[in-house]
């Protein structure tokens, strides 16, 4: 058992160093812009590039910061005895994403290729590229993302933090029972392969993009994908011991630290101001201001309706439901944020907040044990948001892109949206099921019953998260 563990970590280590060394002596793709004696004209456009780049980087930092949000929400809503494990998962997942997306993910997603995946410039960002040149001036192999005039590394970094999010979503749903090593492996797979493939379909110029599907900041590309992979994981893993009685009744397992969970949700809310407005990938004043406002309005509205729904339906304003409500609003507005009006964003948020509460209850009815509500937030509302874009989009905001949604006279868009939802869902769910089963067969998926009872902290990491009570540390 122990040896098996070693074997795999050594494998990873080898792979990493190999790729590192290979990469180190591969030619770098980024063209250094020659800058001697610039004309006024050039300075202006350098200013524009710099402006766009700092916007892209700063918003990317905000999205990176969401890792802290996910870590705290998940650990806060789970039990103290699994805290170290959850924190470790959430912490290491971004490191894994960084490497996996660098090695292969980016190339599959944005490399020129066929409608299903990228083929050129596949590994280590080594394809030809003359960013920040845009449009026709762009000569390189990552042409699907040539619309933004920032350096390649800025594009990569921004996309990387998004890729990291998808894996993190899975973490929450499979918490408190998955083996550490198995989660690590799945994270490599989702960020290196699964996410980039469907990402290619929509953002990489693939078949859904061609069909006219839109997803501004990733309700589907990021959130639903994470959600489908999580659903597969939840099914393969089964519920935590003690979550459901034999006759299917729910026995709540309360979160151990609502302070950190709430802080986490606030971090996510903040991070979303990077996620959505940053997805312009350019400092377009009107667009970013509008996106910031639609994002916030949906979040606020969903917070209120989730509160009210929980209060009326369940009897009390459950804080964990309030937090889920906000996140639901944020996920739902992610696809449509740039294409809809502020009042529309308000309505989308109002609905999302109700949906998420119902979804949490529903998943429990289905005995699908999702400790943090990741499915209700990311899968259900990612889907809802993608759909809502087909209803509420208005052509006037980004003329020549989405066209109008159903409520404003268009139908084509909605059909494309539904196709995207189904296509991505079926593919991601199936490939994830396969991935989970392979991991299960090879290294196993779930910790032992004894370890689950005593806690994964002691089992997987040999340490406890808290020594807070006065005398304890003196014992």
């Amino acid at each position: 058992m122990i040896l098996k563990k070693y074997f795999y970590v050594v494998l990873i280590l080898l792979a990493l160093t190999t790729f590192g060394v290979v990469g180190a002596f591969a030619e770098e793709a980024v063209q250094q812009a020659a800058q001697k004696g610039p004309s006024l004209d050039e300075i202006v456009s350098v200013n524009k590039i710099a402006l766009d780049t700092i916007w892209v980087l700063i918003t990317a930092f905000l999205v990176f910061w969401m890792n802290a949000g996910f870590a705290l929400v998940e650990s806060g809503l789970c039990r103290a005895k699994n805290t170290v494990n959850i924190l470790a998962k959430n912490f290491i997942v971004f490191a894994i994403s960084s490497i996996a997306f660098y090695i292969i993910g980016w190339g599959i997603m944005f490399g020129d290729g066929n409608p299903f995946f990228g083929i050129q410039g596949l590994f280590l960002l080594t394809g030809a590229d003359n960013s920040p040149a845009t449009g026709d001036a762009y000569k390189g192999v990552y042409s699907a993302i040539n619309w933004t005039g920032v350096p390649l590394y800025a594009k990569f970094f921004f996309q990387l933090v998004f890729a990291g999010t998808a894996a993190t979503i899975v973490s929450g749903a499979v918490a408190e029972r998955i083996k550490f090593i198995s989660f690590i492996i799945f994270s490599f797979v989702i960020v290196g392969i699964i996410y980039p493939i469907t990402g290619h379909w929509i953002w990489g110029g693939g078949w859904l993009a061609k069909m006219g599907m839109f997803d501004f900041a990733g309700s589907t590309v990021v959130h639903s994908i994470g959600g489908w992979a999580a659903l597969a994981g939840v099914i393969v893993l089964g519920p935590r011991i003690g979550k459901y009685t034999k006759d299917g009744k729910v026995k709540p397992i309360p979160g151990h630290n609502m302070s950190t969970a709430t802080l986490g949700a606030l971090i996510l809310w903040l991070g979303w101001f990077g996620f959505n407005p940053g997805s312009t990938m350019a400092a377009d004043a009107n667009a970013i201001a509008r996106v910031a406002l639609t994002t916030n309005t949906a979040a606020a509205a969903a917070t209120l309706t989730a509160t009210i729904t929980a209060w009326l339906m369940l009897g009390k304003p459950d804080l964990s439901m309030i937090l889920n409500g906000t996140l639901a609003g944020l996920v739902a507005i992610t696809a449509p944020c740039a294409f809809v009006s502020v009042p529309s964003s308000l309505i989308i948020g109002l609905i999302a907040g109700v949906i998420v509460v119902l979804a949490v209850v529903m998943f429990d009815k289905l005995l699908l044990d999702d400790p943090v509500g990741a499915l209700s937030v990311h899968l259900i509302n990612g889907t809802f948001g993608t759909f809502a874009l087909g209803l509420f989009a208005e052509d006037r905001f980004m003329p020549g892109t989405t066209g109008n949604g159903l409520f404003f006279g268009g139908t084509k868009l909605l059909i494309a949206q539904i196709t995207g939802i189904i296509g991505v869902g079926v593919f991601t769910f199936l490939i994830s099921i396969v991935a989970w089963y392979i991991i299960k067969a090879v290294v196993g998926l779930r910790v032992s019953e004894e370890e689950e009872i005593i806690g994964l902290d002691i089992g997987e990491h040999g340490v406890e998260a808290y020594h807070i009570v006065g005398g304890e540390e003196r014992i």
Partner: protein
Amino acid sequence: MKKIEAIIKPFKLDEVKDELNKVGVQGITVSEVKGFGRQKGHTELYRGAEYVVDFLPKVKLEIIVTDDVAEKVVQTIMNTAKTGRIGDGKIFVSNLEDAIRIRTGERGKDAI
């Protein structure tokens, strides 16, 4: 010597301690416990499902006294900890064979 154990409501602790002090009690050992009794617990709610928390926070006092003051101590606790509402707690009295003060090695009455 007697060992008096009292389970009381937590917010009464300070008052009880002060009163015991007044009647001459020099030492008390206190621990946090959870009590299950006639007093019903409360219902908590989490993510749409309810569950009953049967165990209520109580405080347990252990007081070792000589036989002669035992009754006074019991009375004092009873009077001070009483709110008249269910869940006020219990007092249990048992016999103690010996007591030793670690610092000095004194035994019996002297050790209290």
